[in-house]
């Protein structure tokens, strides 16, 4: 059974595209045929984060308008088997994604893929609603910060009322909280909402915590999904989150401030 997973947040700049790229790559690495779609019409960026910007020929809008078929638009990743990128267009017409058009494309993708990852634009209007409409599962990307938490709550409200599953009275969308840009130091100093705080407020099961990490910027510089940087805390944390999504039990990591242990200090290991 094919599954549509929407990566959403309400607020912009919290890490949706970073997460979409990481999740899609992680799912594909584990042998699932996966496609990641950019729903952020006009602000195409997933192609850059995935490092395929020079290979874009046709896009989502072309396929919806019937100017190209799916096979012509899907870009096969060169690093990871089973992974495909479906870029969006740069059009300024935000309504270019018609409801019928998107439905037709999603249904065609469902016939061919195990996982369809939808990278949502920011906001709670047309664009974000289009990206979440077909969701079977949603990953709510949240930063430990007031406006991000509030917007996540609004998006949860939309999932419960405006998704296809809600409209057709099916089982509700599976919701998961992914806390990103987490800084244990700042939480310890009382400057940042803790995991427990955010979970208590949103009451959605936690799928992972991605620490604030310099590796994310570095990965985006070179067009490599950060999950492929297995040396980095963010890359490892994304790997854990994907494993949990697939049902594995994994402890949360990187939640404590890094205090050097006596042994480490003695032997000079950082």
């Amino acid at each position, binding site marked *: 059974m094919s599954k549509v997973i929407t990566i959403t947040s309400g607020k912009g700049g919290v890490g949706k595209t970073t997460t979409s790229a990481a999740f899609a790559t992680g799912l594909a690495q584990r042998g699932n045929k996966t496609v990641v779609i950019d729903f952020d019409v006009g602000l195409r960026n997933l192609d850059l984060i995935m490092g395929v910007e020079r290979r874009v020929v046709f896009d989502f809008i072309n396929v919806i308008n019937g100017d190209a078929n799916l096979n012509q638009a899907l870009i096969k990743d060169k690093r990871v088997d089973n992974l495909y990128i479906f870029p969006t267009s740069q059009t300024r017409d935000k309504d270019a994604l018609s409801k019928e058009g998107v439905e037709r494309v999603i249904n065609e993708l469902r016939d061919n893929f195990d996982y369809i990852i939808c990278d949502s634009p920011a906001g709670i209007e047309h664009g974000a609603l289009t990206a979440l409409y077909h969701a079977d599962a949603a990953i709510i990307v949240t930063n430990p*910060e*007031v406006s991000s*938490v*509030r917007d996540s*709550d*609004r998006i949860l*409200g939309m999932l419960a*009322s405006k998704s296809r599953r809600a409209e057709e009275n099916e089982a509700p969308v599976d919701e998961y909280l992914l806390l990103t840009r987490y800084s244990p130091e700042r*939480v310890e*100093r*009382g*400057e*940042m*909402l*803790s995991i427990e*705080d955010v979970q*208590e*407020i949103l009451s959605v099961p936690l799928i992972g915590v991605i620490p604030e990490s310099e590796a994310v910027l570095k990965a985006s510089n070179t067009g490599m999904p950060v999950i492929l940087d297995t040396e980095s805390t963010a890359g490892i944390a994304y790997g854990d989150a994907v494993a949990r999504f697939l049902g594995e039990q994994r402890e949360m990591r990187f939640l404590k401030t890094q205090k050097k242990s006596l042994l480490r200090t003695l032997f000079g290991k950082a």
Partner: protein
Amino acid sequence: MMMSIMERLFRKRNDTASVAKERLQIVLAHERAGRTAPDFLPLLQKELLSVVAKYLEVEDEMIKITLEKAGEVSVLEINVELDKARIRKSLPIATEGKPIETKKAAAGI
């Protein structure tokens, strides 16, 4: 839900995170209540207004209806702001013969 006295007492001087949590809990409680409001609320508000308007000169925005959920119980709260309202000179029931009391207490003002 709200912060306990102990938590308040031991809140570190620069602990802004607990302030953030408290503010979020309050604002989201309101926003969620607004979201889960059933569809009949606007109509109920309109009809209530028309009934009240038979007796009192009231404006649209003087009636507020909210439905709040606190755990297991839901509370339907109807607020009619009366300080600016005036009792109508020709009360509809008065035409049925019986004079009605226009004392403040009777109108609930």
